[in-house]
C-alpha cells in the first residue's frame, strides 16, 4: 500500500513539476497580450479622481465604447475596465470592486453568456489574467478553481511551448514595433481598445449561447450591487452590444435574461434591443464593435445615462 502511494506520488510529481515550470516561466513575447492591459487599467482606476464612471464587463465593453466622448458629454472621468468575458463575471466584478469609491458610477454590461450555466465563474482566459496579475489569486474561489482547473495543464504547456519558441526565434524579431490588436498597448488612455477602429469588418460566425439561466449569477450581481451601494456608489446595468444575426439566434434566452434581471431591484438602463445592431457595425465577433459601431453604442448609452443621471 505504502509502496503504491509512494510510486503514485513520484509519478504525479513529475507531471506537477512540468506544469509548475510552465506556469512560472516569464512571458517573453515581444508584445504581451491585452490581458496585461489590466495593469494599466488598475493604475487608471487608482489615479483617476472621483467621482468617476467605470465601464465594466467582458470584451463587449473593451471593444464597445469611446470613453472620451462619454467623458466630454458627462463632464466626468471615465475608465473602461472591460477586457475579456472569459474571465467570468465574478472575477471581473471582484477585480473592479476595490477601486469603486464614493459617488462613482459603475456601468456593468455583462455578456449574455454569463447568465448561462457556470460561465460566470470564468474559463481558460482567467488563467491569462492571473498570470498578468498574480495578486488577483486572492479573488479566486473554490468554484472558480474547479471551473478553470481543467485548463491549467494545457495552459502551462502552451506557455512552455511559447517560451521556447520565443527564446529561439523571437530574438531576431525584437525590432518589431507595430502594435497589433489584442495586445497590451492596443488600448487608449481611457482603456478602450481603439486600435481596430479604422479596420474593416472581418468574417465571423454567429454565436449560440442558448441555455438554462443560472440563478446564482443574479444573486451574485445582487450581492455586488449592495456592496457598491454600501460604498456610496451606484451600479447601473446596461445591455451588451450584440450583432443582429446572433441576437435573433438567441432571442428567447435574451428575453429570459431580461425578465430575470427585472425581478431584482437593479438600476437597468435601456433594453437589449437598443443594443442589437446590424452585423456591419461589428469587427471580428458578434460582441466586438468596429469604429462606427463604437460611436453608435456610445451615443445610445449616453442617451440612457443622461436620462438616469438627470
Amino acid at each position, binding site marked *: 500500500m505504502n509502496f503504491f502511494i509512494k510510486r503514485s506520488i513520484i509519478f504525479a510529481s513529475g507531471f506537477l513539476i512540468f506544469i509548475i515550470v510552465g506556469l512560472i516561466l516569464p512571458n517573453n513575447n515581444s508584445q504581451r497580450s491585452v490581458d496585461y492591459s489590466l495593469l494599466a487599467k488598475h493604475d487608471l482606476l487608482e489615479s483617476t479622481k472621483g467621482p468617476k464612471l467605470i465601464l465594466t464587463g467582458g470584451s463587449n465593453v473593451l471593444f464597445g465604447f469611446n470613453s472620451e466622448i462619454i467623458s466630454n458629454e458627462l463632464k466626468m472621468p471615465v475608465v473602461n475596465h472591460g477586457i475579456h468575458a472569459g474571465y467570468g463575471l465574478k472575477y471581473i466584478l471582484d477585480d473592479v470592486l476595490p477601486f469603486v469609491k464614493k459617488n462613482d458610477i459603475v456601468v456593468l454590461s455583462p455578456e449574455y453568456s454569463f447568465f448561462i450555466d457556470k460561465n460566470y465563474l470564468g474559463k481558460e482566459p482567467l488563467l491569462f489574467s492571473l498570470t498578468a496579475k498574480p495578486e488577483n489569486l486572492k479573488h479566486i474561489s473554490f468554484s472558480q478553481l474547479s471551473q478553470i482547473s*481543467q485548463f491549467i495543464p494545457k495552459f502551462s504547456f502552451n506557455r512552455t511551448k511559447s517560451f521556447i519558441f520565443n527564446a529561439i526565434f523571437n530574438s531576431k524579431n525584437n525590432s518589431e514595433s507595430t502594435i497589433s490588436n489584442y495586445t497590451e498597448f492596443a488600448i487608449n488612455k481611457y482603456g478602450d481598445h481603439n486600435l481596430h477602429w479604422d479596420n474593416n469588418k472581418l468574417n465571423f460566425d454567429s454565436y449560440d449561447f442558448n441555455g438554462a439561466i443560472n440563478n446564482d449569477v443574479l444573486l451574485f450581481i445582487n450581492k455586488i450591487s449592495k456592496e457598491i451601494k454600501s460604498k456610496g456608489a451606484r451600479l447601473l446595468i446596461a445591455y451588451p452590444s450584440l450583432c443582429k444575426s446572433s441576437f435573433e439566434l438567441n432571442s428567447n434566452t435574451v428575453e429570459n435574461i431580461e425578465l430575470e434581471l427585472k425581478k431584482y431591484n437593479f438600476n437597468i438602463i435601456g433594453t437589449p434591443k437598443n443594443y442589437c445592431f446590424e452585423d456591419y457595425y461589428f469587427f471580428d465577433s458578434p460582441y466586438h464593435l468596429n469604429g462606427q459601431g463604437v460611436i453608435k453604442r456610445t451615443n445610445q448609452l449616453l442617451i440612457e445615462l443622461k436620462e438616469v443621471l438627470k
Partner: protein
Amino acid sequence: MLFNSFEYFLFLPFVFLLYWFLFNKILTIQNLLLLVASYVFYGWWDWRFLSLIVFSSIIDYYCGIFIDKANTKTIKKQWLTLSMLINLGFLGVFKYFNFFSQSLKEAFLNFGYELDTLTLNVILPVGISFYTFQTMSYTIDVYRNKLKPTKDPIAFFAFVSFFPQLVAGPIERATNLLPQFYEKRKFDYDKASDGLRQILWGLFKKIVIADNCAIIVNQVFDNYTDYNASTLFIGALFFAFQIYGDFSGYSDIAIGTARLFGFNLMQNFAFPYFSRDIAEFWRRWHISLSTWFRDYVYIPLGGSRGGTVMKVRNTFIIFIVSGFWHGANWTFIIWGALNAIYFLPLLLLNRNRINTNNVAENKLFIGFKELVQVVITFLLTLLAWVFFRAPNVSTAVHYIKDIFSASILSMPEVSIKPLFFIILLVFVEWLQRNYKHGLEFSNHKINRPIRWVIYYVLILMIFWFGAEKQEFIYFQF
C-alpha cells in the same frame, strides 16, 4: 460529480486514503464510508436525487427479505411484483411518462382529435436506468433462489449506490457485486495499478476521442442539410467513436476505480468495433445490459427455444426494449429494431455464435475475409447510430438518404482532426484486443521507464488535445 472534473480529482484520492488507512479495520465501517461517499458523489448533481435512490434501496432491501420469508410461491411473487412495480414505476414517471403522453396526443391528432394530455415537468435523475436495473436484479435473483437476501442494510445500500458504477454502469448483478461487500478487501498492488491504468485509458477515450468527436458531430447533425454526403458520413463515423469513447471510457474509469477499492466489476466493452457480425457486436457492446436483458427478459420469454415465430418475436422484443431503455424517443426504438433486423438472419440460420473467438486470433494482422466482415459489421452499426444520434426519425431518414449521394466522393466540409485520434485508438486497441482494456500490461514485458513514458504521453495528450468538458452521453439514460 463527473469523473473528468476537478471535484472528482480531489474526491477520489480523499476517499481512497480514508478507505485504506482510516476505515480499513472494520468491514461495516468501510462499507459505510463507501455508502456516504457514493451519496456525496450522487448528491453532487442534485441532492434531491438521493431521495429516489434511498427509497428504491429501502423497498428492495425489504422485498428481498420478504420474498425469502414467504412460504408460498404466490406470496413470493407478490413481493417481487411490488418491487418491480415500484422500480419500473419510477422509470415510468421520470423517464417515459411524457413520451407516452405526447405519443398519445399525436396519435389522436392523426385522427382529428385533440387531447389535452398531461406532461410532467420533472428532471430525469442521473443514472436512474442503471441503478434501477441493478437493484431489480437483486430481487429477481432472490426470487429465483440464486441469492440469499442480505440482512446487512449498509452493504445493500452501498451495493445499490456504489459510486464508480452508479450513474452509467456497468450494471452489476447482485450475485457478483453484493457478496464482495461481505468480504474484507485486501489492498492488491497489481490490481490497484492496473485500475489506475484503466482509468487513464478511460479518460483518454472520453476526453481525447469522444469530446473531440462531439464537436464535429454536433456541428454536422445540427446542420445536416448544409453538408455534402462525405461530411455526413464523417459525422456518423465520428459519432460511432464518440459514443464508444464516451461510454466505454466511462466503463473503464468505473472498473478501474472499483479496482482501487478492491472490487471487481464485470467487463462492459470488449473491443466491439472489431466484431465480425452483429451477434458478436452485441456480445462485446454494453455487455452488462445485453446480458441483463438476456437473463431477465429473453430467457424468461422462451429465448430461442421455441419455433421461428417465437425466436423472431423474442428477438424483436429484446432489441426494442433495449432501444427504449436508452430513452423515450422513437429514434431509440428504431435503433433497437434495426439491430434486431441485422441480428435475425444470423439467429435463424443458426450462425449467431460462429464468431466467439477474437478476431485474427494469434495473428498480428487481420485476414482479408475477416477484414471485410469487420468493415461490413461496422458500417451496419454506423447506419443504426444515425438513428440513435438524430433528434427525430425524420432527421435520421433524411440524413441517411443524403449520405447515399454522389457527393460521398467529395472532400468533407468539416475538420477531420479527430480522425488522427481515432486511428491511434484503433491501433492501440487492436494490439490489446486480447486483454481487458487498452493499457493492460499483465503479459507484456515492458519495463517501467517505457511504461511511464506511455502514461505521460497519454496524460499530455489528454490535456493538450482534450476538447471542452462534456457530460457523458449515457448519463441521460
